[in-house]
């Protein structure tokens, strides 16, 4: 009976194929994160982060043995569920913090539904793009653009510009790997930029602080005394103060002074850079690069289109968010309020990342059908 249940859940799972580097690298980055949540916020929060990591491992294992192919066909329903959950934030169940309505309170922690949304979108898109071969026509893109846009809209109005922005790399990653013509993708990028401009000039769409961040990034001299410029400058100062050797864990002056804003979430990178210095921070970035390469390898080795696109979507999401978070900390991008995947504090984000990695592992552990065939697109 139990075996039967397991069978129906896991399918023909091949334990031998477990991609060990994936959970190990993820765990390493999570522990680095916990260390700096400790130094930038509190021991208690670091402990919570570790507890989430433990739950994350369980989620990873469950997702890994689960036969991901069973998702094919229900991905849209799951996505719809996600959309409803986002819309439900506006019901009395939603919780407002810092003037944003992003969470549900489930007692022991706040659930942020926009985080799993990233993964659900990757699944829905992967499901769509794997079922057809040619993506020459623009109108084939109407459905994926619509579902991406709907999710983005609901997250933007929370407001959470940073998380909404992260749906874009999911779309472009999956569409790119799904074989959409380059010409169309370029067209979409242009369209996206145009939309952003329209949002800029349409009153009420972008909040004043978001505009201030963008202005202060493009021209820091425009208003050097704005909060945005101040935050960016303090973050850079922290990185600079780190030097080659770093100031030592828990001894970052700017970190201790509390001058780096949102240090345990949106600005954890400057804290790491200040306390760890170039060598160790660079090492962490190499770990992240390895993880991206390894996800690329899993994507490449997989011949089953759905699994491959799921892996590609997760790769694209993790890679882009990690890149953008660090780029913001180094003054390369305007402040968008993005966490560093795995390292920043945030249960919803952590569990989503582990679930995503678990699904990628699943794509490797369940490929009995298409395995060894050499067909390729």
């Amino acid at each position, binding site marked *: 009976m139990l075996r039967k249940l397991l069978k129906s859940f896991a399918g023909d799972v091949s334990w031998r194929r477990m991609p060990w580097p994936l959970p190990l690298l993820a765990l390493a980055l999570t522990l680095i994160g916990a260390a700096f949540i400790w130094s930038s916020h509190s021991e208690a929060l670091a402990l919570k982060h570790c507890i989430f990591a433990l739950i994350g491992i369980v989620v990873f294992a469950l997702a890994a043995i689960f036969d991901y192919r069973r998702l094919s066909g229900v991905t849209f329903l799951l996505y719809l569920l996600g959309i409803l959950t986002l819309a439900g934030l506006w019901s009395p169940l939603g919780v407002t913090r*810092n003037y944003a309505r992003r969470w549900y309170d489930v007692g022991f922690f706040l659930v942020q539904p926009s985080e799993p949304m990233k993964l659900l979108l990757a699944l829905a898109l992967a499901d769509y793009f794997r079922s057809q071969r040619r993506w020459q026509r623009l109108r084939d893109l109407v459905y994926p653009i619509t579902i991406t846009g709907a999710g983005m809209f609901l997250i933007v109005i929370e407001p959470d510009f940073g998380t909404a922005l992260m749906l874009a790399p999911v779309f472009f990653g999956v569409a790119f790997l799904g074989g959409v013509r380059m010409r169309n993708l370029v067209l979409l990028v242009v369209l996206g930029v145009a939309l952003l401009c329209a949002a800029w000039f349409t009153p009420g769409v972008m909040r004043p602080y978001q505009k201030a961040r963008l202005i202060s990034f493009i021209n820091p001299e425009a208003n050097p005394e704005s909060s945005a410029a101040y935050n960016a*400058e303090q973050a850079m100062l922290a990185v600079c103060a780190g030097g080659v050797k770093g100031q030592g864990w828990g001894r970052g002056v700017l970190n201790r002074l*509390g001058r780096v804003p949102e240090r345990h979430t949106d600005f954890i990178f400057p804290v790491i850079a200040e306390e760890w*210095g170039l060598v160790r921070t660079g090492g962490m970035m190499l770990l992240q690069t390895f993880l991206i390469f390894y996800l*690329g390898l899993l994507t490449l080795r997989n011949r089953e289109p759905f699994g491959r696109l799921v892996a*590609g979507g997760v790769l694209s999401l993790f890679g882009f968010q990690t890149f953008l978070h*660090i780029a913001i900390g180094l003054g390369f991008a305007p402040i968008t309020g993005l966490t560093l995947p795995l390292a920043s504090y945030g249960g919803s984000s952590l569990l989503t990342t582990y679930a995503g990695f678990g699904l990628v592992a699943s794509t490797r552990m369940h490929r009995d059908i298409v395995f060894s065939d050499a067909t*390729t697109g």
Partner: protein
Amino acid sequence: MLSRRVYILVGLFGLAFLVLLGRLAQVQILWHDRFDLSRYTRASGNHLVETVRGGIYTRWGTPLARQVPAFDLAVSYDDLPKDEWKEQVSRLCGVPREKLEEKAQRIIRRVERIRRAVEKRTGMERVRVVEQNQAHPVVRDVPPEVAAAVRAAPEAFPGIVIHEGARREYPNGALAPHVVGGVNDLNPEQWKKVCREGRQWTGGMPLSQIGARYKMDDRIGSSGMEKEYEDLLRGRRGYVRNYLAFGLLKVEKVSREAPPEPGCDVYLTLREDFQRAANEALQRASGMPQLDFDRGALVIVDVRSGAVLAAATFPSYDLSTYRERLDEIAKDKERAPFLFRPVQAALPTGSVYKVITAIAGLEEGAITPATTFTCHRREVFEGRAFHCTGSHGTLALLEAIERSCNIYFYHTALAAGGPALTRWGRRFGLGMPTGVDFPFETTGRVPEAHATFQVINLAIGQGKLLCTPLQVANMMAAVANGGRLYRPHFFHHASNSEGEIVREQRPQFKRIALHETTLSAVREGMRLVAQKRGTARHADLERFRVAGKTGTAEQEASGLNHAWFAGYAPYENPKIAFAVVSESTTGHGGSHAAPILGMALERIWDEVERMQ
């Protein structure tokens, strides 16, 4: 083809991370040693520059309140619960330990509140806010010797810091203490209000945003002009900030500073000579047994602008010494020295209201100046008897005002109707907010009058009628100037530290439509009041050419009266309007209030004549 795309994607990420590593090396190797970073990381490169609160002056510049340098004794937050400093400070400054304990607890509670608010807002736990790294003033304005002692041996006074602050000085503290008002450390309610309005500055904000925002330890005007014109008086803090501007390819040292903007000096419409004369008249009256005066007010306004020239209240206090007498003042509940009677004491006016009754009768066409009624001392309306002060016989309007005949105005009021009586009172601003620039104005009321006895009561200013002296003076000004009901004001202008005028009061008024015949009849009647046969004939006001009306509001409960005298002068070319009230006295308006005005006018009459 799709495999190629995977390579491209991963390759792009690889490239992107290479760029990030390059940037990290650029910032952490090339730029790390270029500067003395501690200069930018420590708080010393950044600090606030305090501003100076503006002063408050009379019309011609007599200082009422001004800022002078002083030392504040502060204790760093983490040391607040300790006992050592309390021992030392108690010895140094002679402040009882319980007071210090209480003060420390207050600061701790406030910081805790801020901390909890931050926690709630951010959802974080165990936040440490900047206020926890600061020293908080516990004793303001310590003697220079104490400051010098602490500064000379800081190691002997752990946790204690001397802040260079400022204190409020009151060179003429007794001249108009209620008008000037007080400045206090922000109390919890005020701090809450400041936060609600988003005008607080907390350490998490950039220095540049301090401007006119409030810090937890700041002081704020809490009453009088200090409260009303807080925004003008306060000024803006400045700051000095040194920082590094990181660009894509280069990094620059930037030093940015904004000088503080001193607060504006506020000049009031109060004239020192007028205000002094008014104060002294009340003071002298309180020493004259025949006037039986122990509380009351005297207001003088400019009939051509609504400017308050003098607003005296008795009993009063001295701003520079009242803190020591606080208990004593607070104990005097009945006479309430803290009450600013000109705008905060609402009292029945007695016969002063007959001016309104006359205007209502004339304007509604119920009477003409020639209409006569006969007074037999007693008259029965609807089965109830109403009385007069004498048996005046048959008289017309002017004489009725002159001698204040009740019976005449009963008939007039009943002819005009209760609603008209109420309407005209309110039209002249009685029982309505005057809009004076003073916090906490009492409105008073002009009641609705429908039943006959209500109309009769209102006709002579008895019953539920309540007016402030300022309302009454302002009403008299409107009679004098032909129907312009001004918004009375204390503010004349404010000038910044360069002496430029930044704000100026412009007269504002509502026009009351009145017939010339109405005005001339009422004015003539009021002129007669201070003449040979008038009710104020004993006050010796003839040489001041005063037009006015006496009033005596009887208090059934106590048997005492509120004695009024209100009007304007000089009658041929009115310049000032006034109202005097002696609360709870045994006397009458003509005998007990009008002489007080006489004492004041005696001092300033030449100035009144000279007024442009």
